[in-house]
């Protein structure tokens, strides 16, 4: 025993929860019940009998679904344990998921949307009964208009990629209205814009041209000039790009595309570093979108529900998804009567709870607060870059000496060359220190990449800790590389053997597939092959 308690080591001695939790089917106890549906009352039974029993053969289910059977407390315990084996943003210095703007999602906003006044509203209710929620959606649109400079917004898209897709459809509709839809079949994007720009455009039938960076790390303006033509439908571009570098020639990019007759759409999924600093409209964009779960703080939900907001100029407003939310000075209402609309992007009006959260977040900050968010995000980022670049083997390719805005795409190329340790191994080892670390979007234009985005939510001490973890892992890579190579050690599980995930004969997306394919057990069900002469 040592008293007083001795000094603490410089890095925390983290160990994640390891419950060694079985798959839920293995916890099944035949006959156990987790929740009981309300019984059918005798008066109903008397009148109609059991209509399910009257279903004809081939329609009525004869063998019950092979779901697990658990008492309520066991369901709860299982999921509580799984939750402990999940490192949510609340628990970690979540700066490792660059491009995703991991910031604090205020608890008060979660509380507001758990109220029945949000949770228990049906989307087909008469407008007169949902004046409160319509008012919030309408007000949120006004706020986003001012933040972006755009004229109208739809808040219907379910997430950022859905908003990109909505913008692509509005671009298509705009060209169609001018009789040019068939001719304008190309969309231009940049390699450091989110992959969904390219993917959504392709899904909508466009040929995709991807611009590479020039020597400065900016998208190549000459390449753009060479790419535009009478076939150009639009430019889909983010700025600052995933490198964190702001494209100083962005107005010229927009102008070149406009002169070719195309539209310019601004991917502002992550606008965190430029709130109140510069706006989509000011650079000449025709469309933009925000991810409300990124810049505007709604929680990420382990991968959604999210919310996307697409903004357009008045020239494009007639194409917005229907319905829009309108206010006539007295009452709020849904306007379904929009003949030029691209129609529905999703059911109803949007991911309402996240719209309420985003509204509350903006109203808790105001103009001065939003600008403070941006400035501190940029300060945090440049501070963290300073700390990371002190680590031998780490670098920030492109634009030496230039500041970054809200994130940086770094490279471990130097470290990898020296030690043979790769970026994904560093990520696995970082988990041992209780933080998340992400490589980067593919393709890896930057070798051995990682992207850090320290939003306004982290303190200087947090950033120092994260940088110290990376420095320690880099030291280990040099001095005890096996520790890194065999990581994680203090995580819920150990290194996963990935081969089976790419082998159709062995992959298992469900427990039944695992039992059937790997264990050779019989499972309930008709067959596993697809008929038809394909």
């Amino acid at each position, binding site marked *: 025993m040592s008293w007083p308690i001795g000094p603490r080591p410089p890095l925390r001695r983290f160990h994640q929860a390891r419950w060694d939790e079985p*798959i*839920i089917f293995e916890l099944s106890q035949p006959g156990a019940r987790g929740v009981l*549906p309300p019984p059918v009352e005798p*008066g109903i039974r008397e009148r109609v009998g*059991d209509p399910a029993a009257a279903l004809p053969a*081939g329609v*009525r289910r004869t063998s019950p*679904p092979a779901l697990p059977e*658990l008492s309520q407390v066991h*369901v709860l315990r299982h999921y509580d344990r799984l939750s402990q084996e999940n490192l949510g943003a609340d628990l970690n210095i979540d700066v490792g*998921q660059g491009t995703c703007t991991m910031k604090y999602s205020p608890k008060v906003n979660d509380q507001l949307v758990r109220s029945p*006044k*949000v*949770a228990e*509203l*049906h989307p087909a209710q008469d407008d007169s009964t949902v*004046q409160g929620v319509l008012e919030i959606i309408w007000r949120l649109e006004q706020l986003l208009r*001012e933040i972006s400079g755009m004229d109208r917004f739809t808040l219907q898209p*379910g997430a950022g*990629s*859905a908003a990109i897709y909505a913008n692509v459809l509005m671009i*298509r509709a705009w060209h169609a209205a001018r009789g040019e*839809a068939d001719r304008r079949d190309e969309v231009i994007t940049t390699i450091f814009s989110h*992959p969904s720009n390219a*993917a959504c455009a*392709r899904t909508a039938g466009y040929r995709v041209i991807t611009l590479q960076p020039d020597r400065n790390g900016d998208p190549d303006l000459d390449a753009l000039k060479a790419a535009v033509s009478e076939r150009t439908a639009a430019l889909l571009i983010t700025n600052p790009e995933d490198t964190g570098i702001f494209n*100083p020639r962005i107005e010229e990019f927009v102008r070149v595309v406009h002169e070719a007759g195309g539209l310019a759409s601004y991917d502002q999924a992550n606008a965190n570093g430029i709130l109140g600093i510069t*706006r989509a409209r*000011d650079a000449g964009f025709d469309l933009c979108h925000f991810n409300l779960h990124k810049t505007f703080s709604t929680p990420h*939900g*382990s*991968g*959604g*529900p999210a919310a996307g907001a697409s903004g357009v100029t008045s020239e494009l407003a007639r194409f917005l998804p229907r319905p829009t939310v309108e206010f006539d000075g007295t009452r709020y209402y849904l306007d379904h009567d929009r003949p030029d609309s691209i129609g*529905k992007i999703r059911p109803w009006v949007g991911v309402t*709870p996240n719209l309420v959260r985003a509204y509350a977040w*903006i*109203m*808790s*900050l105001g103009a001065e607060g939003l600008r403070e968010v941006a400035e*501190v995000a*940029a*300060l*945090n980022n440049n501070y963290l870059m300073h700390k990371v670049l002190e680590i031998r083997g780490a670098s920030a390719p492109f634009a030496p000496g*230039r*500041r970054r805005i809200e994130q940086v795409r770094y490279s471990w190329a130097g470290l990898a060359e020296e030690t043979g340790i790769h970026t994904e191994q560093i990520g696995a080892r970082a988990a041992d220190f209780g933080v*998340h670390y992400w490589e980067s*979007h593919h393709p890896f234009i930057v070798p051995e990449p990682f992207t850090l985005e320290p939003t306004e939510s982290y*303190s*200087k001490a947090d950033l120092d800790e994260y940088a110290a973890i990376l420095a320690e892992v880099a030291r280990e890579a040099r001095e005890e590389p096996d520790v890194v190579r065999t990581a994680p050690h203090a*995580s819920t*599980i150990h290194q996963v*053997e990935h081969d089976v995930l*790419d082998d*159709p004969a062995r992959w298992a*997306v469900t427990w*039944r597939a695992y039992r059937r394919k790997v264990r050779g057990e019989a499972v309930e069900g*008709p067959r596993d092959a697809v*008929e038809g002469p*394909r």
Partner: protein
Amino acid sequence: MDQARPFVHPYIPNSEPEVKAEMLAAIGAASIDELYADIPESIRLRRPLALPEPFLSEAALVRHVEGILARNRTVRENLSFLGGGCAQHHVPAVCDEVNSRAEFLTAYAGEPYEDHGRFQALFEYESMMGELLEMDVVNVPVYDGFQAAATALRMSARITGRRRVLVSAHVPPDKRSKIVDYLAPDIAVELVPHEPATGQLDLAALERALDDSIAGLLVESPSYLGLIETRGSEIVRLVHAVGALAVVGVDPISLGVLDPPARYGADIACGDIQSLGIHVQYGGGHAGFIACHDDPRVVMELPSRLFGLAPTRVEGEYGFGDVAWERTSFARREEGKEWVGTAAALWGITAGVYLALMGPHGMRELGEGIMARSRYALERLAELPGVRIPFREQHHFKEFVVDFSATGRRVAELNRALLERGIFGGIDLSRDFPELGQAALWCVTEIHTQADLDRLVAELAEVLR
């Protein structure tokens, strides 16, 4: 705001001026503005955003937002029969408890190590849906059932290399709008009618529409109008005869009593999981599933993430990871299948909790109860003078059509009168399905008691008087 004190916001730790000064010194910058040197002056906003005064204190914010929300009238405070793809079911407390856990709620894109929990929870969701559907492959949720149907049809076109799909005419116009837009410009969508008398898919018309240029058919059972398709096997046989795929939309909460589409031969099942433990939330509770058999030709066309089981270095330890990652737009940008991104994972976890709570017996009892209650409501409403139930002899699940034409009253007018009595009447179908007349779609679930349904009939009788 008090100008004497610096602006230190509780959500922004480094808004404290001394910390800022220290950090600026560390990076060798004279001011924060220097960090924005790359942004040309021509596009700098040199004025404050014109936003309303904020509510900096949490107390003031809550008063403000709750003050606005107070104007809402909820389905709890009223008696609601609204459905149409978003239904009020009982949400077990444990569902809300689990999806409120900060570890799940605030996580995002963690790796299988530090976010093992969400991988396992979503694998279990896929697995329980797999049992419900009797299919081996279920995706991590997409945005909603609209997206699931649209993607399933696009998959059928990629798999068959064909450019035309068929869609049941009972798929409602909003969903059709999404499907048609999503399949444009390269894939054409044609509607298959239903028999006017029975509401069942018109098999003769289907047979006429089918040829070897058709990639797939989307039919739903239960349909938007609540009808259970009783000739699933015949439909699938016709579709397969031309080498097309059978895509069947299904409300998963019906599958305690209804045979899963795989049993009558469906190649892809799809739908929305809002019914499985997720509040209606003014339409904010949707998430879509796409399921198929474990045939790589189909699996490789799924755009979504698929979390699969994998061994780790330690014997007896379950690990997880992404199955066939190279399919996705994350891996291959526009060369991937459609696109993948943040969608609705938390609702997938929630639906898994729901299915684990319900178990096989709960799902059966729930389904039986919904069928009995909706049949009771249907039969009681049919007693009212002038009220007709168009497909009365058919099997229904949860929803049914009520035709008020013979009462001489319009649905909108009746619903207004019911609203005054605290009842949200069924969705007016007169615009979307004009062929049904002054008809409405009524939704009855396990939350309705006999007293609720009797009250509805009594109040509607008075309104109609």
